[in-house]
């Protein structure tokens, strides 16, 4: 799993590529925590290159949104492939996150 982070104004954007399974989820968790520790409040996760997400992946994203919303921040999601969307849908997480078709729309929604 490759992950790249960048800034779009105040918003931190993480672009993911590959399988978000139990192993890569730990990496993503570290990445998100270090961004939050560095003061990131508004986050967009771009799932453009993600074909698979496990429950560990959902856990990391849920943990991020819980932490950020405590401080009036948020996590928004972009570019979910159909399979990933289905996983979000089954678990009910689509009700929990704002999901956008493109990264740009997600960034601009803040």
């Amino acid at each position, binding site marked *: 799993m490759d992950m790249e982070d960048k800034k779009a104004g105040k918003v931190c954007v993480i672009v993911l590529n590959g399988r978000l399974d139990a192993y890569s989820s730990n990496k993503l968790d570290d990445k998100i925590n270090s961004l939050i520790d560095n003061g990131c409040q508004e986050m967009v996760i771009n799932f453009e290159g993600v074909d698979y997400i*496990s*429950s560990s992946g959902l*856990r990391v994203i849920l943990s991020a949104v*819980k932490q950020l919303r405590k401080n009036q921040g948020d996590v928004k999601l972009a570019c979910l492939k159909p399979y990933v969307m289905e996983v979000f849908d*089954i*678990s*009910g997480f689509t*009700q929990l996150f704002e999901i956008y078709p493109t990264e740009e729309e997600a960034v601009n929604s803040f």
Partner: protein
Amino acid sequence: MVSITIELLMDLLEKISVILVIAYLITRTRFFHEILDKKFTRKNMILFILSFGFISIFGSYSGIVVDGAMGNVRDLGPMIAGLVGGPIAGVAVGLIGGLYRYFFIGGITTLPCSLATIFAGLFAGIIYLLNRGKFIGIWGAVIFAVAMEAFHMILVLLIAQPYSAALAITQEVYIPMIISNAMGALIFAIFINNLNKERETARERDEYFDELTRKKYELEIAHEIQDSFLPHEMPHLKGYDIYAINIPAKEVGGDFYDFIPLSEGKIGITIADVSGKSVPAALFMAVSRTVLRAKATSNCHPSQVIKEANELITSDSKKGMFVTLFYAILDLKNKTMNYVNAGHNPPVMFIRKMGDLECLKTKGIALGAIDTMEPEEKEIKLEKGDVIVFYTDGVTEAINDKEELFGEKRLYKLVKVNSDLSAKEIVDRIKDEVIDFSKGLSQFDDITLMVLKVDDQKKNKMNSFEI
């Protein structure tokens, strides 16, 4: 003159070869390793100082005498001793070599040469302290040796009398001495570097094995926790056939199922999947299962059970842990099932009368995700021959060697085709297909399957306890 220089250089290099063999043997000893680990004891310090003192004395001699003085590699002993063992060792070795030079070898350079050897140990010790006890590295050691020997020559020129003789000696020996001491320092530093790398690798290997062992125990513990919270017997329900299995992945995923006896003629049925893996997942599974049981026995509406269970689980879920869960209350006599789906893979129901499948979905979200929820509850009517297959994503997300998912379609087809079989047979059939599908690949996630079937013929199953 050039021939003397070359002859001296060759002679010193020969000497160094012998010294390095001795040095190599020293680096393999336990006391040397203890010094490298900075576990200084009186014993290892004495052995260390004596060894390098011997090297220093041995290095004092070469076969070539230049105007009464000898080219030598005496400073090498204290330099290495100081760089590796610190100022005390450096100075002590320097004193051994220096005093030996002072009392047992004569000539006009006696005083400066003795002092140089003591200074070599002192400077090396200071470098050790400045570098906080870390070995200075290969090139650091070489540069130090070159500088030290240049300093040695300057001392001879400053102190030895007469100056003309001191100059003549210096001109003769400075190139061979600088080169040979630098070579000695280089090779010795390579020994130490290699030794340090070797030790580092060994340490990493040990840590890795420790980690593996710990991981293995952790997996076993997770297994045990999970296993101890799963029912080990199937309930015998009059008019129904029910069967379930859980095949944990090597790294358990916290799947569970449960049968909760409620008031007469009613039973709670659940299947769930906890986020994450291993011990955290197993513990969260144990908590979720217990919370659900407690709430289920005090409430007869699945939506209320889930709402209350969620509140407890969310308050316990610190790191984003959550559990997808399907909970139903089966009314045995009235043949109805009220259910709530909290973000779980929808169970699939084969409706005999229509010969078709239906997914048991409700609007819901995994427990632990949000503080309060109002889960939707639905009711279905069951009829003879109907089959409900409950499962976790370990079934549909099993992968084959072409990285294809097992998927719902294959599962649905199996349910339809095998709906005439008993609950256990249906479970086994699906399980075999999934295992066959991902043949040769390691199982990624727990596989949990449960089948509830409404008896379609008058069977006599009176040999079992009933709820």
